[in-house]
């Protein structure tokens, strides 16, 4: 049963520290999204990749967030330096094709707490 995996599942860190979250999309999927979920804002799109190329990161605070896909099996989201307001659940989702009718498969998420 193919699934999106994310590590770590939980992360507690102190303000100012670097945080790296990893995502392994479903094998063969060519599109990857990063989302942030909070109670107040709901699901916010942070970044979007197709065939490993970044297409849209307009939802990301540029000064501290960065997203990359070093290869087809790994997407990373980094926060440096982290701040308490970054506390949220970060989801990665992958799709077989970059099409509006394709289903997004979400990973289990990384629950980040910044103290």
């Amino acid at each position: 049963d193919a699934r999106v995996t994310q590590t770590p599942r939980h992360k507690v860190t102190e303000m100012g520290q670097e945080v790296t979250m990893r995502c392994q999309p479903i094998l063969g999927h060519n599109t990857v999204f990063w989302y942030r979920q909070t109670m107040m804002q709901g699901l916010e799109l942070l970044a979007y990749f197709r065939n490993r190329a970044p297409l849209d990161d307009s939802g990301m605070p540029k000064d501290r967030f960065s997203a990359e896909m070093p290869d087809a099996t790994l997407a990373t989201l980094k926060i440096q330096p982290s701040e308490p307001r970054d506390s949220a659940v970060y989801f990665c989702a992958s799709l077989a094709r970059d099409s509006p009718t394709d289903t997004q498969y979400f990973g289990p998420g990384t629950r980040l707490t910044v103290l």
Partner: protein
Amino acid sequence: GQQVMQIPQYQHVQEGEDFTTYCNSSTTLSNIQWYKQRPGGHPVFLIQLVKSGEVKKQKRLTFQFGEAKKNSSLHITATQTTDVGTYFCAGPMTGANSKLTFGKGITLSVRP
């Protein structure tokens, strides 16, 4: 920009009652998708509607796409405790790619 609205954000029902929630878009959508997120879990795709007026059923869940393709509804017949969770609707941002605008979701709680 495009907005997808789900109001209210929370609803509580007695087990066995029917439940209906609505999703409204500020723009016409090429399709609409519904996802469910269980407490502590991640969003899981439920269904996609594409045609104007389309109705699809999944056991006790009935989904409908509005005639104008700007709204959708989810109806649950005889709710069960397994229906607990947050239901999101989402529509493509431009229709050209897979970016979705998600509604804030409605969190359903069921009293046994």
